[in-house]
């Protein structure tokens, strides 16, 4: 497996949707290619860091204001 072929399979590998035989090839390539191993590890870290960090927080005050606005308009309208 070349590095380009490896990259093409990376999404399925991450998502656990890769075929068994291909998974073995992907793992084998990672053992042989330190660059691709780093790409996989750091991509995994990229996803984790974005998932674990609340990049855009909604403050309690803003949240309550938005919900109050939504609900007051809903009560005025009635559901279609």
């Amino acid at each position: 497996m070349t590095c380009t072929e490896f990259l093409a399979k990376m999404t399925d590998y991450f998502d656990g949707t890769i075929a068994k035989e291909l998974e073995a090839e992907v793992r084998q390539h990672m053992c042989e290619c330190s660059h691709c191993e780093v790409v996989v590890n750091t991509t995994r870290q990229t996803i984790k860091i974005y998932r674990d960090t609340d990049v855009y927080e909604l403050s309690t005050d803003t949240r309550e204001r938005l919900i109050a606005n939504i609900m007051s308009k809903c009560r005025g309208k009635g559901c279609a």
Partner: protein
Amino acid sequence: MPTPTIQSPAVEEHPDVALVARAREGDTAAFEQLVRQYDRQIFRVAQHITQNREDAEDIVQDVFLKAYEKLDQFQGNSKFSTWLVRIAVNESLMRLRKRKTSRTVSMDEDVQTEEGAIPRDFADWSPNPEQIYGQSELGDILRKTIQGLPPGFRTVFTLRDIENLSTEETAEALGLSVPAVKSRLLRARLQLRERLSRYLKQPEGVKP
């Protein structure tokens, strides 16, 4: 000898289905429960796409009002949250278009870019970036980094990797094919990785 009855496992109904049904009947408390369940998610999606806080706050309101008005159109074939996300994506792209009047903004914009398609940085990262940067500095780095991605890429990354929608749900919410989602997701992940590497890679000579 009596034949044992084989009971098929009951299909569990998502709790949102009952809340939606109550809301349709005019139960606003049920609808408020749905709002409180998903407002943060809708805000994150809108803020990631528009990169504008004011717009994202407006979108949260517009999405839930639209959903309330169109509850009857919710078929229940998809999750209620996916339905809301789809409305949020459309509203967000519309806002982006309004702000950039001279340019067309769509899910396809800039996705042809070659940046990050081929990894160039092969340095390993520090295992605990939280120890290098404070929480707020790290937040700034993450915001700045994702901001630089084309909308078509950051939207797919947001839905798939941050909001944890499945590939199929992401495709449905964005009106894209599954292969298109996979291809954009790969490019988005690689571009983010490449850009974050500048901040998070280990100094040379240091091994984890």
